[in-house]
């Protein structure tokens, strides 16, 4: 008897808290998504309080669905998430293999590599967009100006001068512009999360079967085929985990978007919701439900995979 009651009692606070966290705000969002609800309206003051009499059915969903900015936000969300995933996985595998060997100072290199992961997102964005990427005052501006000076110098050089005189002036890129701001976000988040991929893939590499590898070497397998047929299959699972965990985190990027360009050119789904929340709560809630659906598609795969190994 007591054997069952006490464990249940111990689990109750955690479960109740999370149940509250999961159910209450989400059901409010669900309710708001079906009513007309705005924060300020001079013509229709009755819409400014959440009431069932303002029922709109799927009207908010339809409204959001027909907005170009909604699709742009979905497009940006996917562009940003997929680019980051692609870059972090490629870089992660390469760097994990690079530092999986012993070499002098390996411990220090590991510490250097992991550091970006602990930088708070707001600082990451401020650091990159100002100090590093600013086209005039940042490191980029300095580097471009330096390169131009160098080319100018080489134009007067004897033999190679005629070649360099064909070179154009380098133009620095403004990463706050509509066309480029998404790339700034991709760059800074990739910098921050590649260490995460490296850390996990490296941990997994350490459990790789060394005997199998030695056998392969004795059989004369090339470096490439060792990687292709032994290492890569071994890494398949951790790569899948890296992809899914990152997808969940990056679908809700916010601080970076805000700091880089206030959503100009890189507005993703959370930022779009954040703008709608300033007035149109009904539409914001409907967009929120779309975001939940998008996140769930990713989550189902992750939970399936974790579920298999949970009780081992």
């Amino acid at each position, binding site marked *: 008897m007591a054997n*069952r009651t*006490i*464990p249940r009692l*111990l689990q109750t606070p*955690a*479960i109740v808290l*999370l149940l509250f966290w*999961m159910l209450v*705000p*989400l059901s*409010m*969002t669900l309710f*708001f998504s079906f009513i007309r609800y705005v924060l300020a309206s001079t013509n229709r003051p009755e819409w400014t309080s959440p009431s069932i009499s303002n029922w709109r059915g799927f009207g908010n969903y339809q409204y959001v669905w027909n907005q170009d900015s909604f699709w742009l936000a979905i497009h940006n969300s996917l562009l940003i998430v997929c680019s980051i995933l692609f870059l972090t996985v490629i870089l992660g595998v390469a760097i994990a293999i*690079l*530092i999986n*060997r012993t*070499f002098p100072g390996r411990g220090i290199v*590991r*510490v*250097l*590599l*992991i*550091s*970006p992961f*602990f*930088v*708070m*997102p*707001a600082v990451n964005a*401020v*650091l990159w967009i*100002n*100090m*590093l990427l600013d086209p005039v*005052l940042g490191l980029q501006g300095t580097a471009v100006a330096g390169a131009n000076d160098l080319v100018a110098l080489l134009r007067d050089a004897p033999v190679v001068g005629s070649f360099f005189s064909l070179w154009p002036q380098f133009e620095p890129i403004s990463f706050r512009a509509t066309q480029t701001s998404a790339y700034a976000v991709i760059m800074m988040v990739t910098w921050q999360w590649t260490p995460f991929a490296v*850390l*996990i893939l490296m*941990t997994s590499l350490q459990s790789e079967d060394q005997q199998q590898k*030695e056998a392969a*070497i004795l059989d004369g397998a090339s470096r490439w085929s060792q990687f292709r047929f032994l290492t890569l299959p071994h890494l398949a699972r951790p790569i899948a*985990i890296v992809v899914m*965990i990152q997808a*969940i985190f990056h*679908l*809700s990027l*916010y*601080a970076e978007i805000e700091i880089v360009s206030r959503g100009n050119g890189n507005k993703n789904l*959370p930022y779009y*919701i*954040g703008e709608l929340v300033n007035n149109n709560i009904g539409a*914001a809630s409907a967009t*929120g439900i779309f*975001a939940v659906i998008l*996140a769930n598609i990713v*989550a189902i795969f*992750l*939970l399936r995979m*974790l*579920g298999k190994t*949970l009780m081992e």
Partner: protein
Amino acid sequence: MAIVAQHTKFSKVAWPVLAWAVGLLFFFPIFFMVMTSFKTDADAVKPEFLFRFTPTLENYTNMTNNYDYWRFATNSVITSVTATLFTLFVAVPCAYAMAFNPSRGTKDILMWMLSTKMLPAAAVLYPMIFMAKSLGIYDTKFLIVMVLSLINLPIAVWMLFTYFKDIPKDIIEAGQMDGLNTWGEVREILIPLAWGGIASTALLVFIFCWNEAYWTVRLTTIDAATLSKLIEGNRAPEGLFFGRLSAVSTAAVGPIVVLGWFCQKQLVQGLTFGAVK
């Protein structure tokens, strides 16, 4: 032997050089930020002072005047520490019960807990603002502590569960034979044995709380604003204040980066929910 034979002379030199180059490249932005924090605002944007400059502590000594740094830092410390303690207070008993008295539903409960972590924050933004304002707790440390605890609770339960699971059950049973009650089991057996696991869970939760940028920015204005909010609100347009901005940024991330160095290993378990070891 075979492995050794594969390393040519070239790769013996090139490999470490490449590895060091990659490590330094990734660390460079942090180094650059720390370096800029020792320049005056005027020097920070002049190319001729890129690496050669007269270091000054002025940005750090003026941090309070420029940004009111300590007020935000105090808020960050109070909310992160309280949230971490509260999270552990709720998560340790839960994970303990799940690891030592698993029932048929335990696995499903764990899965469900994790699924709450996947709820996009933006989807419930307005309800949170609405509830906080109607309860009169908007922009209070209490609200931030609760939100930070809730978003980190699933990770804490998972991490602790994976640690507790590895403790042999026989030891607990032996304790029960000796007449220990549940609290006695926790105090005499579990905490001494799982101390490392609990400590690294605490460290990781603390780091996540400290770095949290969505809720702390959206649910605060002045009174409960944390360092994330401070940095977000001072993103220095046009590079007028690179020096002082770097100093306050360095002060905001420095302690956490150093803490992070000590829990690399645990990070893997914590972030992959025990699926990669």
